[in-house]
């Protein structure tokens, strides 16, 4: 029997606002516990929330980038449940009037295009973080009140691989839109995974389970592979799937039951009386739409047209916004944008992956790369020297012209000197000269190599070749 899989994701994306959603506290990661807190985000008696307008803006930008309908009227609601990491024991969220409805994300799977539907995007506040010690527990409220956007998909995803592609594509769009840092290690993107399977002969969806609080894409992938298999096995052996919440145990590589549906909360939603509804007029939405950043697809086309790059190269560069931004910055300062791309596609990506670094970690500035290309194009340095300089720039940064000068790496283009060295190479290697004259043209390469060696690799190879030919052929 074949089974069909339906997966829907609820992705929580932390917005990159400077301050929290309802107070002025900072949102930075890694501060000592309970240092980014105030009476408002601690839920002290008498305090009131005040909406951070940037959070609204970023959520709308995300909606526009995903093709959602932006609600001209939306509101906030209280979602009630008790938990020690919830300062007010209700979360300010959006129930029936979210900021954004609908939309989609395009993914590519096995070379085929597929569209994953977005149901809605709403805005809510994050909660604190509990830590358990022996015999007691502590709560850090630094994270409480940081704005989160919840993006809910349709159950359009049909495999673990598709889920992975969706998350990668979504992250790319969020980064392009600059609405989130999307830093997974800092918990900027977390998701709940809903999954069901059914025999292919059945049209209605099977009973779903929900895997809560996944914070890595790899984890989502692994948990889904397990969960799909678990559900299929259960159906095969005639068992019922229970509607339940499960937890992924990455060490054991299995999902574990947390609670079944019957004991789930009644959240008792009602409109938040402390906040006014969000009314967005169409002028405001259009203003924000006009400011939208270019998405990867459009940028790729433009790179091909504007910089004359092959489509493949443009595709690689735009995959990562940081890489594409770096490229553009360097290309703008260079007369040879194709050469910039060549350096980034080869040396830069190789060194980054070899050393496990991100673009942001390296000292080399885009203008340094442009400078390096200029030195090569003007024949100031030859290509092997250029690679050496690139290595220095990558590790230490700096001005390539200065490095070339300081280390005496400029190409030897002095024809008197080279003439002398060519003569010496001919004298020192009579057999090669003989080989050449007897028709073994490759012998010339050996002689060029000898001259290069004498100049410690700095000679202009083209000039050496010309001088040799003149002498040997003449």
């Amino acid at each position, binding site marked *: 029997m074949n089974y069909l899989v339906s997966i829907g994701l609820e992705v929580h994306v932390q917005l990159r606002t400077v301050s929290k959603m309802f107070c002025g506290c900072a949102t930075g990661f890694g501060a000592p516990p309970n240092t980014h807190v105030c*009476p408002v985000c601690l839920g*002290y008696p*008498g*305090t*009131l929330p005040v909406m951070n307008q940037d959070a609204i803006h970023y959520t709308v930008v995300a909606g526009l980038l995903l093709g959602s309908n932006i609600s001209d009227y939306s509101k906030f609601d209280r979602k009630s449940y008790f938990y020690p990491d919830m300062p*007010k024991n209700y979360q300010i969220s959006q129930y029936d009037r979210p900021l954004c409805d609908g939309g989609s994300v395009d993914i590519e799977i096995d070379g085929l295009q597929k569209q994953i539907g977005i149901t809605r995007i709403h805005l809510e506040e994050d909660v604190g973080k509990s830590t358990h010690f022996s015999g007691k527990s502590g709560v850090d409220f630094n994270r409480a009140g940081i704005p989160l956007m919840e993006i809910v998909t349709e159950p359009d995803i049909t495999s673990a691989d598709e889920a992975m592609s969706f998350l990668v594509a979504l992250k790319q769009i969020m980064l392009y839109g600059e609405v989130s840092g999307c830093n997974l290690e800092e918990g900027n993107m977390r998701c709940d995974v809903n999954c069901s399977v059914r025999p292919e002969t059945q049209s209605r969806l099977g009973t779903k389970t929900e895997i809560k609080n996944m914070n890595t894409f790899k984890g989502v992938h692994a948990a889904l592979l397990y969960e799909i298999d678990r559900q299929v096995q259960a159906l095969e052996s005639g068992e019922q799937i229970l509607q339940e919440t499960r937890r992924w145990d990455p060490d054991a590589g299995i999902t574990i039951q947390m609670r079944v549906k019957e004991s789930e909360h009644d959240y*008792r939603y*009602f409109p938040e009386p*402390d906040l*006014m509804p969000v009314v967005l007029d169409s002028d405001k939405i259009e203003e924000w739409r006009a400011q939208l950043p270019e998405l990867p697809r459009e940028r790729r086309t433009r790179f091909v047209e504007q910089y004359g790059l092959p489509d493949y190269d443009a595709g690689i560069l735009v995959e990562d916004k940081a890489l594409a931004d770096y490229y553009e910055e360097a290309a703008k300062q260079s007369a040879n944008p194709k050469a910039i791309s060549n350096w980034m596609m080869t040396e830069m990506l190789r060194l980054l992956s070899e050393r496990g670094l991100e673009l942001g970690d390296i000292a080399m500035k885009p203008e340094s790369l442009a400078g390096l290309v200029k030195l090569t194009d003007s024949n100031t340095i030859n290509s092997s020297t250029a690679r050496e300089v690139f290595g220095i720039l990558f590790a230490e940064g700096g001005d390539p012209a200065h490095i070339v000068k300081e280390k005496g790496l400029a190409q030897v283009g002095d024809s008197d000197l080279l003439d002398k060295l060519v003569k010496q190479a001919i004298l020192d290697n009579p057999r090669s000269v003989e080989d050449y004259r007897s028709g073994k043209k490759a012998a010339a390469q050996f002689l060029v190599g000898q001259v290069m060696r004498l100049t410690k690799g700095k000679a202009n190879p083209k000039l050496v070749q010309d001088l040799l030919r003149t002498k040997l052929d003449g």
Partner: protein
Amino acid sequence: MSLEIENLDLQAAVELLEGGSCSSEELVHALLSRITARDSSLCAYLSVDGDASLRQARDADKARASGSTAPLLGIPLAVKDVINVSGDSCHCASKILEGYVSPYDATVIGRLRDAGAVFVGRTNMDEFAMGSSTENSAFGVTRNPCSIDHVPGGSSGGSAAAVAGGEAVAALGSDTGGSIRQPASFCGCVGLKPSYGRVSRYGLTAFASSLDQIGPMTRTVRDAAALLEVMAGHDERDSSSINMAVPGYSSCLGEDLRGMKLGLPKEYFVAGTDSEVDNAVRAAVEECSKLGAEIVEISLPHTDYAVATYYIIATAEASANLARFDGVRYGHRAEGVINPIDMYGKTRAQGFGAEVKRRIILGTYVLSSGYHDAYYLRAQKVRTLIRQDFEKVFEDCDALLTPVTPTPAYRIGEKVDDPLRMYLGDVFTVPANLAGICGLSVPCGVSSDGLPIGLQVLGPAFKEENILRVGHAYELARANSKNG
């Protein structure tokens, strides 16, 4: 000099201080003596910090010596225990907030502080402002200064008793369903509930967020106007506060009511109201007519539904607002608990009183899945109808005249076992909160038992000047007729 502090109103105190005939320190000192002498029988205050008040008073005297002319410089005020004052306790008359010290000033406190006010103490109330008699305080029952075995009303019963009993020049209260106007009426002082959004709620411990307002409780209408002028205005920290200029309320007051049209809602003059109350209010209406107002009978057809609507919406909001009292971050935490659920259960069982528990349970019920639409949603629809009733009559009327309560103050313990009867006493006050309009309670008579009776003046949203004008002119006329 000998200060007759028990008869001193705010206006007179300002004049004394401005004229230099007494210092703020002397004034506060006299007040503290009065509280010491009187409060053991009234129990209007939960706490009084004499040293801190005298220090604030001396600072005010120094500021005056260096030329400050802040409008309330050196004036002592009493604050209902539900409003946060930095460094003071804010127990909301509940055991669950034991040990809590507020880390911040409510916006109104900040404004009054900037205007020079001195904060003397915290007044008793029904726990979390839930009640109409101040019998629901975890820290003792406040008594009515006009008759010691009667309730002062509630929930701002401590503030009303302090003002009426000469233990405060003026006080702050909060009004969610009548909690300023009803105790003012029971004790015989003036109480003003501003329009929803006129005064910032930031720092007012929330009972029902869409209904709560802070307001002044004073000896005279003029004093209420003077305090409101300082308290009102937009606050960025309260999204429900309106960004609209604050009129100079004191300068809107006059001696007559010529050109004003006042409505009498027929639903507020019905059988079931105590005849002495009915007579006193009708006499007050007659007085207003003599002052030049045109009196018209009008109708607010949805009045009958107001109490039910109120107790659904208020308890629903309260059930969420009071969820934060869980023992995790501040206040009382039960000992010997085994897990968070156990901690919540025991902390809240020990910390909350019976009325608060009743309302949390009621509010939780009306929001529960399966009941939400039948109760909460329906109540919101009726609330809209009640608001529209008022909007319609205010197209024609400048203000409405009604009783504040169906009866004068009742005896302590008389209704404590019958919450429903107690709730029905709010019938004339809750509609104003549901509609978001403003309301004033002004003394208009005394029953044969010597208990005060209040006249309620209701005005359109953000037209506090209308009700202050009516209340002031009436108050002057009544004083003249008593003297004359």
